């Protein structure tokens, strides 16, 4: 494509867009709405994922070493634990620390205050890399001679719950994004179809004098590209504003302020790139599908 052709196509594309101002406005409006819904769902999913990851990290496995082992002997087990597949880290908790924590939990109940420290085995709080493999890791830990069967506490039901929530949220998000993407493509395609219909005489003249399909197609592709880009830019800033407003109200609300919201500043680049990519893809996809039938002259 020559330089003068590039500018010609870009100018014609912009002209097409502005000469059908109302339709372009409608297409941009609806695409912005679709991008906002897609973006909101994705950001909700990102936040849910972050919260789940945090909860997952709190879902530790407790491995008790054999009762009667000295603290030095117990600490030596750490390297065997770390060697087990799927173990991300292990924190040693001595019998004294465990007893103190226990007493602290029941400080109003005298019955538990007199328990000797020796009754509490040394233990490790173990973080897993993937809680989906909790059962296997539990079995591997129980296979260690210093720990033994039945000495690992793992909350497998909770872990399975987290995984189910994450999977369902992921599927809902993907389906919704796909549907909204197709809706946006359809709307942009219809807008461009109106533009092409309005310019069908010009297209016929171009065909008549020997213009190639590519030459005829480019201005419409630029138009779709511009519509998508405008939608992406507007959608991005609206999304930012909306997200900040929701984050502020979550932070100031007494009931839900425990929910930690991922700051927009940490992910704005990703959101911008995804919005720009989706917008341009919707625009160019829509224009290509619209122009196809008008080229069969």
């Amino acid at each position, binding site marked *: 494509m020559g330089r003068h052709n590039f500018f010609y196509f870009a100018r014609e594309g912009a002209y097409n867009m502005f000469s059908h101002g109302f339709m372009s406005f409608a297409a941009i409006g609806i695409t912005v709405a679709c991008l906002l819904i897609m973006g909101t769902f994705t950001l909700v999913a990102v936040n849910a994922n972050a919260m789940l990851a945090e909860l997952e990290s709190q879902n530790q496995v407790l491995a008790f070493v054999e009762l009667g082992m000295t603290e030095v002997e117990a600490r030596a087990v750490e390297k065997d634990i770390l060697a087990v597949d799927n173990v991300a880290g292990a924190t040693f908790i001595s019998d004294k620390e465990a007893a103190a924590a226990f007493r602290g939990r029941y400080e109003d109940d005298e019955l538990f205050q007199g328990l000797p420290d020796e009754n509490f085995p040394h233990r490790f709080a173990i973080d897993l890399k993937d809680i989906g493999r909790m059962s296997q890791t539990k079995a591997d830990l129980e296979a260690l001679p210093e720990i033994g069967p039945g000495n690992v506490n793992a909350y497998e039901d909770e872990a399975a719950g987290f995984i189910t929530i994450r999977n369902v949220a992921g599927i809902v998000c993907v389906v919704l994004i796909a549907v909204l993407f197709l809706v946006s493509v359809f709307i942009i395609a219809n807008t461009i179809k109106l533009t092409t219909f309005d310019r069908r005489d010009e297209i016929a*003249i*171009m065909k*008549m004098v020997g213009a190639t399909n590519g030459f005829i197609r480019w201005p419409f592709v630029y138009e779709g590209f511009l519509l998508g880009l405008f939608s992406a830019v507007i959608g991005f800033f609206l999304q930012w504003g909306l997200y900040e407003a929701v984050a502020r109200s979550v932070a100031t609300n007494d009931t839900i302020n425990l929910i930690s919201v991922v700051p927009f500043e940490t992910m704005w680049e990703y959101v911008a790139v995804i919005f720009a990519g989706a917008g341009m893809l919707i625009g160019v996809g829509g224009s290509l599908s619209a122009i196809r039938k008008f080229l069969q002259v």
Partner: protein
Amino acid sequence: MIRLTDVVKEYPNGTHALNGLSMEIQDGEFVFMVGPSGSGKSTVIKLLIGEIEPSAGRVMVNGFSLQNIREWQIPHMRRTVGVIFQDFRLIDHKTVYDNMVFAMRAVGSGPREIKKRIPYCLNLVGLENKSRRLPSELSGGEQQRVAIARALLNNPSTIIADEPTGNLDPARSLEIMRLLERINALGTTVLVVTHEKDLVNRFDKRVVMLERGRVVSDGKGWYGRR
């Protein structure tokens, strides 16, 4: 050169528009094609500009064989043929000059080429002073001259005119025919489809008459000998 050999065209609705039509137009010739409605004139034009394909037979236009032409070659074939229609087909919101620019841009011509070629073609049709006018500010005859100038922009070897005088009064019609004759004198092959007998008889040119998709007469004058 244009050559149609035993061309048959059957439309999807079953209409037989051409029934074994054969004719040949040599480079530099001026030919009128006449015939009643439904005789196949429009089908011949559509075939010659690659808008439709023949059902059978061979169509050759300026070295392009149209029955097995590839899609990407069609624009290149069309650049060798300038087409003029009864309804002028100018873009209303563009000036005469911009209509010409539009046609040249469409085939990828650069600014330098455009600046050189458009004044030449407008001068050829006598409209060099009206390049800034909109089509609506021109008479029918002038609009048709703009269409002729546009058809000449890509320096085609053939001009095909489909009822070019259908919307014009007799004086303007004669003017347009004289202009086409002058273009022919410069070496361009001209094929004019018309049904205006008086106009055709004013020119001592070859006349091909179609009837039911076949050539029924071919020679000088309205009822030329085959």
